[in-house]
C-alpha cells in the first residue's frame, strides 16, 4: 500500500468524485462569504477608496496563477519519473485554469491601476513577469494541442514545463534588474508586520481559501474529463481494429 495507488485511473476517479463535490460546495461557501463580506462589510481605505476591494479577487488569482504552474511542474516531474498517466493529465488540466487565473490577475490589476496609478499598464517587474507567465501558459497549451500521440505530448510538455519554470524565474529577476517597480510588495506573508489591516485580512483569507478550493475542484473536474476522454479514445480504437 503506497500513496501511488491513488494514481491508478480507476481509483483516482473513485476517490476524487466526493473530493471534487465537496470542494465545489466549500468553494461556493467560502468564496461567497469572503467576497460578500469583503465587498459590502469592510470600510473603504482612506487612500484607496472602494478600489481596495479588488484585492479579494486580485491577490488570490495571482497566488493561484503562480501555484498552478508549480503544480504543473510537480505533476510533470511525477510523470517523467513514475509514468503515471493521471499525473500528466492533471498537468494538462491545470494549464487552462492557471492561464485564466493569470488573466484575472492581470485584468483586475489593470482595472485597479487605472484610477490608482493613472495607467492601465506599466512595464513594472511584477506585471511584466505575469505577462510572460501568461505567454508560457499559451505555449504550453499549444504544444499539447499540436502533438497527436498522447504519450509523446505528455513527455514533451513536461520537458517544456521544467525548462519554462527555470526561464520564468530567470525572467522575473531579469525584469527586476531592468526596472524598479510601481507594484507594492507582498500583501500577505508569514511576517505579521507586513499584512494589510485586519479588517481586510480576514475576508481576504476566506477569499483565498475559496479560490484554492475552486482551483482544486476545477482541476479535478478537468482531469476526470481527460481520463474519460482517454478511455473513450481507447475504446474507439479497439472498436475500429476489431
Amino acid at each position: 500500500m503506497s500513496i501511488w495507488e491513488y494514481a491508478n485511473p480507476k481509483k483516482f476517479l473513485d476517490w476524487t468524485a466526493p473530493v471534487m463535490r465537496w470542494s465545489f460546495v466549500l468553494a461556493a461557501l467560502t468564496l461567497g462569504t469572503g467576497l460578500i463580506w469583503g465587498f459590502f462589510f469592510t470600510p473603504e481605505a482612506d487612500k484607496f477608496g472602494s478600489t481596495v476591494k479588488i484585492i479579494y479577487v486580485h491577490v488570490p488569482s495571482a497566488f493561484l496563477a503562480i501555484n498552478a504552474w508549480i503544480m504543473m511542474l510537480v505533476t510533470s516531474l511525477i510523470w517523467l519519473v513514475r509514468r503515471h498517466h493521471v499525473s500528466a493529465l492533471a498537468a494538462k488540466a491545470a494549464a487552462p485554469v492557471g492561464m485564466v487565473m493569470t488573466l484575472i490577475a492581470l485584468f483586475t490589476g489593470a482595472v485597479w491601476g487605472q484610477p490608482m496609478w493613472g495607467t492601465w499598464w506599466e512595464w513594472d517587474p511584477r506585471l511584466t513577469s505575469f505577462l510572460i507567465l501568461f505567454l508560457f501558459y499559451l505555449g504550453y497549451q499549444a504544444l499539447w494541442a499540436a502533438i497527436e500521440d498522447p504519450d509523446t505530448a505528455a513527455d514533451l510538455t513536461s520537458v517544456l514545463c521544467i525548462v519554462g519554470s527555470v526561464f520564468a524565474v530567470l525572467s522575473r529577476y531579469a525584469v527586476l534588474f531592468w526596472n524598479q517597480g510601481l507594484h507594492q510588495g507582498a500583501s500577505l506573508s508569514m511576517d505579521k508586520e507586513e499584512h494589510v489591516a485586519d479588517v481586510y485580512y480576514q475576508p481576504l483569507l476566506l477569499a483565498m481559501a475559496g479560490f484554492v478550493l475552486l482551483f482544486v475542484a476545477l482541476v479535478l473536474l478537468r482531469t476526470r474529463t481527460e481520463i474519460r476522454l482517454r478511455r473513450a479514445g481507447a475504446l474507439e480504437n479497439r472498436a475500429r481494429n476489431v
Partner: protein
Amino acid sequence: MKALLIRDLRLAVRAGGGFGLGLAFFLIVIVLVPFGVGPETSLLRPIAPGILWVAALLAALLSLDRIFALDHEDGSLGLLATSPLPMEAATLVKAVAHWVTTGLPLTLAAPVLGVLLNLAPAAYGPMLVSLALGTPALSMIGTFGAALTVGIRRGGLLLSLIVLPLYVPTLIFGAEAVRRAADGLDYATPLMMLAAITAGTFALLPFASAAALKMNLR
C-alpha cells in the same frame, strides 16, 4: 562532432540552406524601423539598442526550424541517434552550427546597421560584445525549441510561440547593456548576466534538447 559540425555548416552555406537569409531579414527589419517611426535621428538614437537586439532575435528565430526539420525528414536524425555520438553532443553541435551561420554574421553586421539607426558612438563596442555573448544563447534555446517541435508538421508558428518567451531574459540583458553604454553608464553587470545565461543554457539545455529529441524519435 567535428564531422557533424562541418556537414551542418556545408549544408547551410550551399544553395537552399538559408544562409544569408537571416542576415537579409535582419537588414530589412532595421531598414523598416525608420519608415515606421519616422526618420528623426533624435528619435532613433534612444531606441536603436532595443531595435538592433529585437531584430537580431527575430532573425535568429527565422532559421530555427531548419535545425532539425530537414534531418528529420530524410532520416539522418535517426542515424544520428544511433551513432556513437551522444545526443547531447549532437544537439550542442547543432546549436553551434546554427550560431556560426546566423548569430555570428548578425553580430558582425550589427555595427553597420547601427549607423543606419544613429546608434550612440560609445555603444558600438558593447553592442558587438553583447551580441557575441548573447546570440549563442539564442541559438541554444532555439535548438531546444526545435527539438520539442521537430515531429510537428508546420511547427514553425508553434516554435516561435514557445521560444520567444524563453528569449526574454537574454533580450533584456543584451539590450540593457547596449542602452547603458549608449547613456555612458557602467555596462559590465548586464554583460556578465548575459554571459551567465549563455553559459547556463549551454550547460543545461543540451540535455533537455536531447531528451526531447529522443521522445520525438521513439
